[in-house]
């Protein structure tokens, strides 16, 4: 179980798809103008990533290497279409906002990349850990980015028609936050923050492991 957890944790920290691997940025910058949109985009990616990881890993012994990419694409596209139809049916306002970015999850390199690099080689249990970890890592970053942009840009955060938090009415947000330059600037700070955090965590790990060896050395 500790191996499962360490795989799961990598997606959130040292292998985070957005702040470390920096893949799937296109959709991230585009949909992170609204908290609500980013939240459901995150859920959609978690679902597609985990389900396709399970299937790819489950089929890894029977899918010939030479046709693996077409098979992966069909699997991923099917799950994306399921999400697309479901969202259109049950969350039409969110679907209007996310628009073309939902079908474009098919070509999001996080999903094909993880299928190719991880799920195709690992047992189902670990593939689930990787899918969930990467998906939650992606969602966490996109939700934080969208919260900052919506709050600073529009002065309030609205979730499914309800105002969650807002600045007083006189606040007039700078438009640049909602446009792409603002997304890049804020995202840059988030990458810097994530790097600092990862560095500190790995430094602490080295320290503890050193202390362990010293203690062990003293004991023997």
């Amino acid at each position, binding site marked *: 179980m500790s191996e499962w957890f360490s795989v799961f944790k990598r997606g959130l920290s040292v292998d985070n798809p957005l702040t470390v691997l920096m893949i799937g940025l296109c959709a991230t910058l585009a949909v992170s*103008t*609204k908290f609500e949109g980013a939240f459901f985009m995150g859920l959609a990616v978690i679902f597609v990533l985990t389900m396709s990881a399970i299937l790819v890993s489950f*089929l*890894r*012994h*029977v*899918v*010939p*290497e*030479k*046709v693996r990419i*077409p*098979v992966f694409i*069909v*699997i991923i*596209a*099917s799950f994306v*279409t*399921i999400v697309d*139809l*479901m969202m*259109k*049916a*049950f969350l*039409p306002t969110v679907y*209007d906002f996310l*628009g073309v970015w939902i079908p474009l999850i098919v070509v999001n390199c996080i999903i094909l990349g993880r299928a190719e690099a991880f799920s195709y080689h690992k047992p189902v249990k670990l593939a689930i850990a990787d899918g969930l970890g990467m998906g939650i890592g992606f969602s966490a970053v996109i939700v934080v980015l969208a919260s900052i942009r919506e709050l600073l*840009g*529009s002065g309030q955060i609205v979730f499914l028609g309800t105002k969650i938090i807002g600045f007083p009415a006189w606040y007039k*947000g700078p*438009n640049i936050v*909602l*446009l792409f330059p603002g997304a890049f600037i804020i995202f840059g700070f988030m990458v810097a923050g994530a790097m600092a955090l990862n560095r500190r965590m790995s430094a602490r790990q080295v320290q503890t492991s050193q202390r362990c060896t010293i203690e062990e050395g003293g004991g023997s």
Partner: protein
Amino acid sequence: MDRANATPGQMVLAVVLTCAVAASALSVTYDLTKDRIAEQERAAEVASLGEVLPDASEFVAMEDLLESAQVAAGDSDVGAVYRAEGESGDLMGWGVRIAARGYGGPIRMVVGLDRNGQVTGVSIITNTETPGLGTEVLASDDFMTQFVGWDGLDIDSAAKAYDAVTGASKSSNGVRTGVLASGHVFQEVLSGIREGGAVDE
């Protein structure tokens, strides 16, 4: 099976089987959601029609008028023409669903006209304008209400006196184009039908 040295037959089988399973999974999902999706789209449309023609109780899609309406609208794309009816089935006005080019793509809207061709309101269904700039135009009451009262029979002169929003003139012009084209649809197609309405004194 050795996945590195599969025979062509095995490869074909793998891809065909995957596609077959995927297709059946999708057809099940489609069946489960299609009624609900159609219902949502219909509800969204009726809601915007009700917004621009609040007095009407029934909207009937006029499919036989669609083709001539599309010709009259020129570059803008007419999606549907609705006849708005009062409680006794009398003609109250017209709703035109139209898409005109904005800054980031088509702006889909419903333009309401009363039976004399005066614009009663404009309601935006979907748009892909720049968040914070173009979308502010569409959300601004000051901007959207200026179209109310434009005379469909003389829409070209009405459209000359019009205020675009600074910084988002392409989004503003997109809405104006849609209203203008709806006016042309009224001039060339709908105004002729007015006399044929059930109750017209």
